[in-house]
């Protein structure tokens, strides 16, 4: 692969950063702003890293947005019932994992299309969330210790950024260095070939979907910590953006395969564009138009490079 094909997306990101830095040297290029971008992208990155697992399986999980929202509502409700931080987080993460595990089980056992099953699952989770919260934003009784998980700095780096880095390392480790990850990728690459070499489709799918919604639940917890409140649909906006990040990442580094580092890069592109355009004070409709063009452009750089090679 040519250099531009291999690192096209990275080059795209750097080009975008350079452009914004040139247009707004004081505000955008300031160190504090760049650090802040890493914080702004972190929740999206975590959700997208989760989605990377199911995309590695060549499937979709469209319930991630609903799971982010659910995690927030569940945790605040449990805090309200007087639970401690650790049990609340554990229960919420397990609930998150369970949502994906159920989807994965249904999808792998009965070969149902993941698109429709997880869309339906997202609707169900949304209903449950609504039921628990009664449709209201919940904000009371959140311990300060929990809130600190989603705000503030550690050694000059935003805590959220550290979470996102840890999530990236974890996802990359699972996908690249564990048998589970290799099996997920093999199923995603050629399901029948994987099955015939003895890879078990059902348990591996359950893990992939479960990890996906586990990450979403983590993002939901951190979002709640960051905002100090939970909204019954507060996480739904992550859905399409997360997949945009994964797809952007798929065009990076490896030939069209989902990968953790690429996903992080994809989330960074989305965050940088949003931040830069806001700083430049571009009217919101032009922001939409530019965001679309920049994303297409970022993919194009890579693909034109790839063709020429």
């Amino acid at each position, binding site marked *: 692969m040519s250099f531009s094909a291999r690192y096209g997306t990275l080059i795209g990101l750097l080009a975008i950063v350079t452009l914004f830095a040139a247009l707004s040297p004081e505000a955008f290029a300031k160190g504090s702003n760049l650090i802040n971008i890493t914080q702004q992208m972190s929740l999206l990155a975590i959700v997208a890293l989760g989605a990377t697992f199911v995309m590695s399986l060549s499937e979709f999980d469209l319930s991630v947005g609903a799971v982010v929202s659910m995690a927030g509502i569940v945790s605040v409700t449990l805090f309200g019932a007087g639970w401690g931080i650790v049990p609340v987080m554990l229960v919420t993460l397990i609930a998150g994992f369970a949502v994906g595990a159920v989807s994965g089980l249904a999808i792998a056992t009965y070969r149902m299309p993941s698109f429709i099953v997880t869309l339906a699952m997202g609707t169900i989770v949304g209903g449950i969330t609504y039921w628990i919260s009664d449709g209201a934003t919940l904000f009371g009784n959140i311990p300060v210790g929990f809130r600190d998980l989603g705000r503030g700095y550690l050694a000059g780096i935003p805590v959220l950024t550290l979470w996102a880095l840890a999530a990236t390392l974890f996802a990359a480790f699972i996908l690249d260095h564990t*048998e589970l990850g290799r099996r997920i990728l*093999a199923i995603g690459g*050629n399901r029948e070939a994987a099955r*015939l070499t003895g890879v*078990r489709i059902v348990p591996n799918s359950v893990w992939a979907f479960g990890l996906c919604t586990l990450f979403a639940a983590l993002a939901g917890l951190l979002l709640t910590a960051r905002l100090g409140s939970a909204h019954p649909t507060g996480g739904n906006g992550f859905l399409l953006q997360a997949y945009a990040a994964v797809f952007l990442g798929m065009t990076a580094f490896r030939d*069209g395969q989902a990968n953790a580092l690429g996903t992080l890069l994809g989330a960074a592109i989305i965050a940088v564009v949003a931040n830069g355009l806001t700083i430049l004070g571009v009217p919101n409709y032009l922001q939409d138009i530019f965001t679309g063009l920049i994303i297409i452009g970022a993919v194009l750089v890579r693909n034109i490079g790839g063709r020429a090679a």
Partner: protein
Amino acid sequence: MLEIEGFTKRFGGVTALDGVRLDVAAGRVHALLGENGAGKSTLLKCLSGVHRADAGTMQISGRTYQPADPRAAEAAGLRTVHQELNLVPGFTAYENAYVGRAYPRRFGRVDWKAMRARFAALRDRYRLDLDIDAPVGRLSVAKCQIVEILRALMDDAQVLILDEPTASLSEDEATVLRRIVRDLANQGCAIIFVSHRLDEVFALADDYTVLRNGQSVGSGQIADTSRDEIVALMAGEAFRHERHGDARAPGDPVLELSGFRVSPVRAPIDLTVHAGEIVGLYGVVGSGRSSLLKAVWGASGVAEGDIALEGAPLPASGIESRKRAGVAYVCEDRRHTGLVMHHSILDNAVLPHLDHHRAVGSLPIVSWRRARAGIRSALEGLSVKYGGLGDRISTLSGGNQQKIMIGRWFDPSLKLFLLDEPTRGVDVRSKAEIHALCNRLAGEGAAVLFATSDLEELLMLASRVVVMAQGAVTLDAPNSAVSRQSVIDATFHAPPQPSKPEIRV
């Protein structure tokens, strides 16, 4: 008719073709020969507009020919049957024949009746057995191959290119195909024909060109050469393929099937394979060999009956139970169900035994360093030709892919190997290597059960011959007790009803 001069094609660092020269005359069958990875398919892909050569010229009937895409090649009168199947799984056979062509139309709508009738007539003309109404996704590889060939015969071609068309055909269909090819040649069509079955080449071809490492190293008329001479040209040295099928004394039973049914509606099968034995399954296309191997592997959910490994009963289905018990399986269709084509060689090679390359003891973490080292030495033993372990496996030649697909299973602790068409599309030398490998496995006490459509191979490799017809076993005898004729006869036997095969020697 077709003249190629100085053809060169590089893929990144690999030089697949290096100044190739090829002259094909009208009305003649030209065999293109060479070992796996010699560049045959690449040359043909350049001809049919899939690849563009980096250098070199082509002329058809004296006019310069430079196809920009497959459409242009078709327009110039070339028809190609590629080595790998290229069919739309959801379409019927007859619709597949029309993809990329103008569909017949009636009142502005596609005229399905006319399409079907035309294709059915073609099938009947060549007296082929083919269900043309089922989606091809449900046909076996061999049937798909027949669809591909029929598609190329839909309208008159100037040049017909056949890249290993007989690799997945049994003797019977291969004979039909050879008849078709002769007919076309007699009508003035130029035919380029790739095959690793040398007896077939000698029976069919008029001229030959041998490629080695992307260069044309010899060409001439078949009548003026010999089998040994061709093999020497291909391999670059003298080389003999030993006949095995020896009478090694079989050990204890490894695999025992009794009343085993592939599915509830199929005939029950009784079969025993002993340690140290190489049992060859033979039959015509659709006789049920692949289904049997797959069911023994536990990969079909509907099998029933008794199956035991070294005396211990196994569940009727479930791949894990076989894997745990020490069974390995290699399927027949490497592209669709064998390999993950867009993954690397390494990824494909480690897949069956991910847990053999752990970094630390019991943790399911892969040590890539170990994996690389292990796979590299394993592939060396099989003389696989590849660039780097990180390359996509789809960039390897078909034969090399096949070797990896088998080689990745090797493990001394295995007791039974189920190999479905293990040498499909493999060159003579590699075929000999794979055969030697099977013998080595058998010598070490493993049992081998393989399916083949190649009669030569069957008689060369198997120590026992099992013939299937319509899903039932019609012949089960030691190699020494069968002849070519008795095997072929058995393929046409009506399956014994209702259960046990009668013919035992």
